[in-house]
C-alpha cells in the first residue's frame, strides 16, 4: 500500500459508539445495517455499561462519509438502539489493548526489551524462544509498536479493538 492510499484509508476509518438495549439480536440488526451498505466492520467491542439494561458497542469501520451518516441514522432508527454517533479522534479518549507473541532469540532479546520499555509495554509470559507482550495505547501507538516488533517475527497477535469515551460532561 502506498502512502496516499494509506492516508485515504485512515480518513475513511470511523469509530462509531452505540448505546443499545441489552436484548438478543441487537448485534445482528446493527451488523445488517453495516453489511447492506458495504461497510466492513474492522473491529467491534461489546461491553456492559453502568446500567445493566444497556450495552455499549464500539465499532470501527471503513467507508465514505456519506454512507457513514446513513449508517448512523439507520442504526439510530433501530428500536433497540438508544444512541449512535461517530467519535472523532480529537474529542474522545480512545484506547486499544494488544497481545503479541514474538520470537525471542538471545541475540534479539536486548533490542526487544528496549522496545518494550520505550512503549511502556509489559511482558506477560516468556519461554526460551518467545515472549507475550501486552500493550495498551491508541490505535496508532499499537500500529507503530507492531511495525517495529515485527522484524523479530510475530508468531501471533490479537487486538481488542478500539474503545472510546467522551471526556468531561459530554456523554459518549
Amino acid at each position, binding site marked *: 500500500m502506498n502512502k496516499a492510499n494509506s492516508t485515504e484509508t485512515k480518513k475513511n476509518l470511523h469509530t462509531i459508539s452505540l448505546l*443499545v*438495549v441489552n436484548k*438478543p*439480536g441487537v448485534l*445482528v*440488526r446493527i451488523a*445488517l445495517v453495516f453489511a*447492506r451498505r458495504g461497510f466492513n466492520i474492522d473491529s467491534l467491542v461489546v461491553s456492559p455499561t453502568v446500567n445493566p*439494561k*444497556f450495552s455499549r458497542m464500539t465499532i470501527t469501520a471503513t467507508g465514505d462519509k*456519506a454512507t457513514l*451518516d*446513513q449508517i448512523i*441514522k*439507520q442504526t*439510530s*432508527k*433501530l*428500536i*433497540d*438502539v*438508544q*444512541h449512535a454517533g461517530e467519535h472523532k479522534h480529537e474529542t474522545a479518549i480512545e484506547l486499544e489493548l494488544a497481545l503479541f507473541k514474538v520470537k525471542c532469540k538471545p541475540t534479539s532479546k536486548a533490542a526487544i526489551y528496549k522496545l518494550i520499555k520505550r512503549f511502556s509495554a509489559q511482558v506477560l509470559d516468556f519461554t526460551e524462544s518467545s515472549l507475550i507482550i501486552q500493550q495498551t495505547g491508541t490505535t496508532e501507538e499499537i500500529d507503530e509498536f507492531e511495525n517495529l516488533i515485527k522484524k523479530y517475527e510475530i508468531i501471533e497477535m490479537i487486538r481488542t479493538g478500539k474503545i472510546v469515551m467522551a471526556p468531561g460532561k459530554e456523554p459518549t
Partner: protein
Amino acid sequence: MTTKRSPDKPLTGAEVLIKCLENYGVEYIFGLSGGAAIPIFDALVGSKIKLILVRHEQGATHMADGYARATGKPGVVLVTSGPGATNTVTGIMTAHMDSVPMIVLTGQTITGMLGKDAFQEADILGISMPVVKHSYLVKNTNDIPRVIKEAFYISNSGRPGPVLVDLPKDITSAPCTAVLDPEMDLPGYIVPSKGNKNDILKMAKMFKGAKKPLLLIGHGAVISRAGKAIMELAEKLNCPVTNTLLGKGAFPETHRLSLGMLGMHGTAYANKALILCDLILSIGSRWDDRINGNPAEFCIGAKKLHIDIDPAEMGKIIQPDASVVGNARLVVEELVKHVEPIDTKEWLQELNYLRKQFPLKYSCENGVTAQQVIDALYQVTKGKAIVTTDVGQHQMWAAQFYLTDQCDYWITSGGAGTMGFGFPAAIGAQFGKPKDLVVAIVGDGGFQMTLYELSTAAIHKLPLKVLIIDNKYLGMVRQWQELFFDNRLSGVDLEGNPDFVKLAEAYGVKGFHIHKVDHVKEVLEEAMKYNAGPCVIHAEVIKEDNVFPMVPAGKSAYHMIIEPPKTKLEKPTGST
C-alpha cells in the same frame, strides 16, 4: 364442536394474546393454521375477532396490508412456523417498503427445540430481520402482553411498518399471569411528532422570493392524513402539486392545482414542472428512484425542502436546503401559518400550457386498450372506488387514468413492486371498508400469483371486483425489451393463460368478459352492479402496448420520452 374452558383455570399465553388483540380493537385476523400455532387458533374459538382463513400465507399478508391501508389500523396476520412463516416474507417486505402497519404472529417450535432443526422450524426472526420495523421471539409467557402492546405501538407510530412476533408453542400453551396492560419497555424508540418550530420557520422563509414553487406529495402525507393541511398550503401559496404513486389521494388529482403523478410514468407536465421549478417541497416522499432516476440532475437550481417523520430520509438521496423531521400533517399545519401567498400566475399558466400540449392520451383504433378500460372504469364508478393494483403496465395506466381524490382510496405496492398484491389487498380493504366499492385492477401475470384467494373472497361473499387487464404478457418487461433490448423477448410471454371467466366460475365467482371496444362501458356497468359476491372482469386488451410518458431508469426528467421513440434507445443505467 366447542367446549367451554373451566373458569378457574388460568389463561394460557395464547388466550392472553387473543385478549390483548381484542383490547387493541382487532376485528380480523388473516391467517392459515399449522401445528405450532394450534394453541393460538384454539384461543380464537369464541373470540369476537373474526378469523379469515386464507389459502396461502402470502395472501394473508397482502390482505392485512390492504386492510391497514384502507383503515389506518394495523393488519394482523397469524401463521404457523417454518414454511407458514417464510411464506409471509414477501408480504412483510411489501409492507416494510411502503411503511404499512402490520403485526405478523408466527407459531414456532417449542423453546427446548429451538436451533435443533425441529420439524417446521425456521429462524423467521433472522430471515425477516432486514424487512421488519421490529421483531420479537417471545421466550417467556408473561412477556406476551408487553410484547403485543409494544408491537402495536411500534407498528403504527412514527414511520409505520411491520412487526413480527415469533411465538413458540410451549410459550403460548403455558399459563400467563401477567397483567393485560403492562408498561412498555422501549427506551430506544423516539417518535417525532410536531417538528422543531425553528426548522419550520426556516422552511417557511425559503418560500420568500420563489416564483415557481412545487409541492411533492408522498405516502407520508397519506399516512398522516395531511390532505386538509396540504390543501390549505397549496391554496394559500397558489402552488401546483404533484404526487408520487403512493401519494395519490393526499391531494385531489382533480384539483386545478394538481399535476397528477410524476416520475417514471408520470404525466409529462408534472415531470416538466420538476425541471422548471425553483423550489420543491417534499411532504412525506423519499425522493426515490422512480421519481428521481439521477439525483445529480434532480431539480437543478431549485431549493429543496423536505418534511419527513424519518430522520434517516434526510440527505439519504437529496441533501435538503431546509428540512423538518415530524408528522407531515402536524408540520404542514404549522408551516401554513408562516408562509405568505406567492404570485404564481405565470407559473400556473406555463404549466397549463404544458398540460394542454402533452396530455395523457390513448387510442382505441387497434382494439381494446388497458387505458380505455381503466378510463371507462373511472367514469362508471365516478372515481369513487377504492382501487388496488398489482405491479406493471396496468398499475401505471391505473395511476394515470384512475384519478384519486381522497386518502386511502389508492392501494398499490409501490416500493416493493410486488406482483400478486392487488387482489388479496382488495380483500383486506373490503373487510376494512365493507360499504365501499373496491376494485382490484390486476395484470394477468400478477393475478395468477395469488388467484387462489378467490375462495376466500367467495366464501365471505365480498362484493369486490377484480378487473384483469389481460395482454398475455408480462407487459412492463416486454416494453423494456422492445425499447431497450432490440425487441428480443425473453421470459415475458404468458402463453397458456386460463379462461379467467371459467376459472372464476369454478370458484363460484361471477365472471364478465370484455373484448370489444364498444362494449367496455356496458360490461363494466353491469359488473359494478353485481353485488351478490365477488366478480372477475376479464378484459382482453391489445397485446403490445407501451406506457408513456417514460423516464428511462437511471435518468432524470430531462430525458423523458413522451411519444413512442423512432430511434433505438440506450440501455438504461438504473437498476429496474
